């Protein structure tokens, strides 16, 4: 039913050398991500979900396998190409926000719009996460939820093809987390940005189009949600 494939990952394996033992983070993962969809990657800690996200985001390189994005294999990309890929095509949201403490909310967004092609303005991006009134605050002056919303604004301001969120609510309480999820859902709906959220919180799966269960470095199952539940109705 989805039309366009944004990512096509085939046979992804990632082996970490820890001392003398080899640790398999991924054991042959095949995965497609489609235009406009919101996917939740669900799995316990150590299931390989972060590794998968890092590979999709161009932060890590698989031991074997390929990731096709826009006709190119990310695995074969140079350092420079990966930088460009992150710069122009991917938006990241992290568990601990990773805002620049010395820049205000607006400037944290501007740091990305200044180097992007055809970005929205920082004001527009912050408006989308309902933070227009907190624009000139420094991260230290914002709550955790607000900081995460700034991080989302920063990630979407470049109009990325895909938004990758690694435990975006992991450091937040339930009600604040819901506000952040609402922001993600709204952006997915309004901008049509393919969004992948990784979490170990099964409740969040209900807001996704598809839920991909990861376990022990493999895709255990993929569920298609027939009915998406609005984030406001979630709680944990």
């Amino acid at each position, binding site marked *: 039913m989805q039309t366009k494939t944004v990512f096509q990952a085939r046979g992804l394996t990632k082996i970490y050398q820890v001392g003398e033992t080899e640790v398999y983070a991924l054991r042959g993962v095949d995965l497609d991500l489609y235009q406009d969809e919101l996917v939740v990657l669900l799995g316990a800690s150590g299931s390989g979900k*972060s590794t998968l996200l*890092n590979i999709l*985001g161009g*932060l*890590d390189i698989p031991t074997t396998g390929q990731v096709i994005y826009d006709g190119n294999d990310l695995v074969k990309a140079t*350092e*420079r190409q990966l*930088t*460009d*890929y*992150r*710069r*122009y095509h*991917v938006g*990241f949201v*992290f*568990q*601990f926000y*990773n*805002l*620049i*403490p*010395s*820049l205000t909310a607006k*400037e*944290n967004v*501007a*740091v*990305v719009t*200044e*180097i*992007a092609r055809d970005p929205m303005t920082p004001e527009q991006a912050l408006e989308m996460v309902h933070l227009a009134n907190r624009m000139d605050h*420094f*991260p*230290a002056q914002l709550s955790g939820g607000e900081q995460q919303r700034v991080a989302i604004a*920063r990630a979407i301001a*470049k109009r990325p093809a895909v938004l990758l969120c*690694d435990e975006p609510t992991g*450091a937040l309480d339930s009600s604040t987390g819901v506000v952040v999820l609402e922001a993600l859902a709204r952006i997915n709906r309004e901008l049509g940005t393919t969004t992948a959220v990784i979490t170990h919180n099964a409740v969040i799966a209900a807001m996704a189009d598809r839920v991909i269960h990861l376990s022990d470095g493999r895709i255990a199952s993929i569920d298609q949600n027939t009915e998406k539940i609005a984030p406001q109705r979630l709680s944990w």
Partner: protein
Amino acid sequence: MTSLSRKLFRDLWLMRGQALAIAIVIASGIATFVMSVSTLDALQSTRTQVYTDYRFADIFTSLKRAPQQVIKRIEAIPGVREVESRVVAEVRMEVESFPDPVIGRLVSIPDHGESKMNALYMRQGHKPKANKQEVLLSEPFANAHQLKPGDAITAIINGSRQKLRVSGVALSPEYIYSLSPGAMFPDNQRYGILWMNRKMLATAYDMDGAFNDVVLKLMDNAQATDVIERLDRILARYGGVGAYQRKDQQSHHFLSQEFRGLETMATLFPAIFLGVAAFLLNVVVTRLVNTQREQIAVLKAFGYSNSTVGLHYLQLVLLITSVGVVAGLFVGRRLGQGLGNIYMEFFHFPYLDYRLATSTILLAFLISFSAAIIGTLHAVYRAAKLPPAEAMRLEPPVRYQESLLERSGVKRYLSQPSRMILRHISRKPLKTCFTILGIAMAGAIMMLGKFQGDSIDYMLHVQYDLAQREDLTVSFTEPTSRRAEYELARLPGVQYTESFRHVPIRIRFKHYQRRTILQAFDNSTALHRILDSHLQPFDLPKQGIVLNDYLAKLLNVSIGDRVIVEVLSGRRPTLELEVMNTVGEMIGIPAYMHMDSLNRLLGEGEAINGVFLAVDQQYQDTIYRQLQNRPRVAGITITDAAVQSAHDTMGETILIFTFVNTLLAAGIAFGVIYNSVRIAYSERSRELASLRVLGFSHSEIAYILLGELALLTLIAIPIGFVIGVQICSIIATEMDSDLYRIPLIIESGSYTFSATVVLVSAILSSLIIWQRLKQLDLVAVLKTRE
């Protein structure tokens, strides 16, 4: 080994780059300290030992001629322990295969037995045998001409050419540093000390049963000034030129002057280095305690006491410091020995008693530990006091605000990375200031090495290119009529002559007094000129006296004051003269008068002491030969040779000094810069990695880190210039003496040099960080909280 000490060593290993950088700065400081203190120690203790062993005299004076019985009267002066009369004469000499004029100072030694004072240290050969034409040579002179016992030299003694056999080579406490009269730097080829048996010398100079030089040893409680006053009174009618104390004795005075320089070095440099080291330790330990908050909490939760935790960090500090001190001790010892050897080329001690005193080693540890503890006290105290529960929690987020520069309106022109740089710098203004100050200090020290060379070049330029432009200076054995000048003017190759009159004087104003030379000239200033403070030649007034400005300062006189001038030769009149002007010369403390006015006041007719000559280079050797044969010629000074010996003397010491300085200051520059950027790196690696994830390239994040460094360095360089000029000026002032004043001349080369070394250090540190940034772990930062 306890677990805590194991942690200590592992922490140290993890921060080895920074620890090493700090240790280098400490080592640099301790090296300069040990070098200067140990050399000073060696020179001072050697001097004291040599003075004692060879019975260096306390009072010195020379006179025209006095019968030997006068010694009895001198011995009767209260406070005098011993008196020794001598015959001393300046002679022209001829050394085979050396065409230039050579002056020797012949000093008598007792025919039998040891001198009572200023005894000789025999390096080679034996003392002259009675009734033989034998001399002892001073070692530097012998070495300069490669003369050894058994060789012969020729001296023109009282007009007759005499062949003297070298019986030995010796050193004297009186001539540890020896200069020919009027010279600024030693020239061992053209000036030497010779010792001869009293009888032989006395006969040659018609001094049988008489003397023309006397040295005294005083009792411990004697008042030197009282003795001098009585001595001068006794010798006045015998042509005494005024006695002086040991502190005014040339060799001793030079030594003391040099010691003062070393003392300055021993305090100024270590203070700078250790100050910088204390700051670096402060920064590094503060950072360490911050990053180890959780570890501190765990240790305390498990029952480690505050003092154990505090001590743990203190040990780390002292360990780094110790590494620096030990390295500094080794390097300083080597440098000290090297410096001692250089000094031995100018200071002719029989031996140099160099050793690194235990007290110096202890002091090195003491001052370094104190600096380190003062620098880290606050951080260590914080670690010790941190309550475990609070330590468990994360450090409160860092609060930033817009920098002053941005608020001034330039904000909109700045990219986000540039704003990050400015805000990071302005967040901890004190730390930023100290970093800038540290880098500036390194630049400042770098200016010192070249400064000395530049200043001395300038001093020589003023002295020999602008003021003393004569090629040769011929001085006569005694005041002579003007005819002598006309005779010299007629020699082939002599292009121009100017005559001069020099008389020894004691000049007084209120209770201040100084001995110096009063120089008189005509106002024919083609060769020898008097320069005002703007280095413009000016005419000597027909009346009154003109003083060197340093002499004026020593006497506390201003233009218009009247000074008392006691002439210490001839009829010895005492004159009262108005100070008409001051002269801004950098060498010596002469006073000047117009020749006519001096001759009028002395009432000795038209007398001159010597002549300045401009000569045709081609005729130079012929002129030397002609002059050698003139009995009344006491000495010939070649200006070029004087300049050359100045360069030779200064060249070596300054090169070494510059080299050592460069090395040490580069140590500071690197230490400060590397630490500053290394800490910034660890403080900011998380946000830099985040930016990498957001699509910033390696060079874009490097800009944020290295741009900050570049900004600090660029601010520091001009501040370094300013501090450098200040330190140079302190050193110049510290070195000021009646011998010379070092002008504050800093050529553009000094600035370039300073900036270059700082920039190279910055570039080197940047390269290291550039490499580190490549290895930034992008994945790890996303998973961790700061």
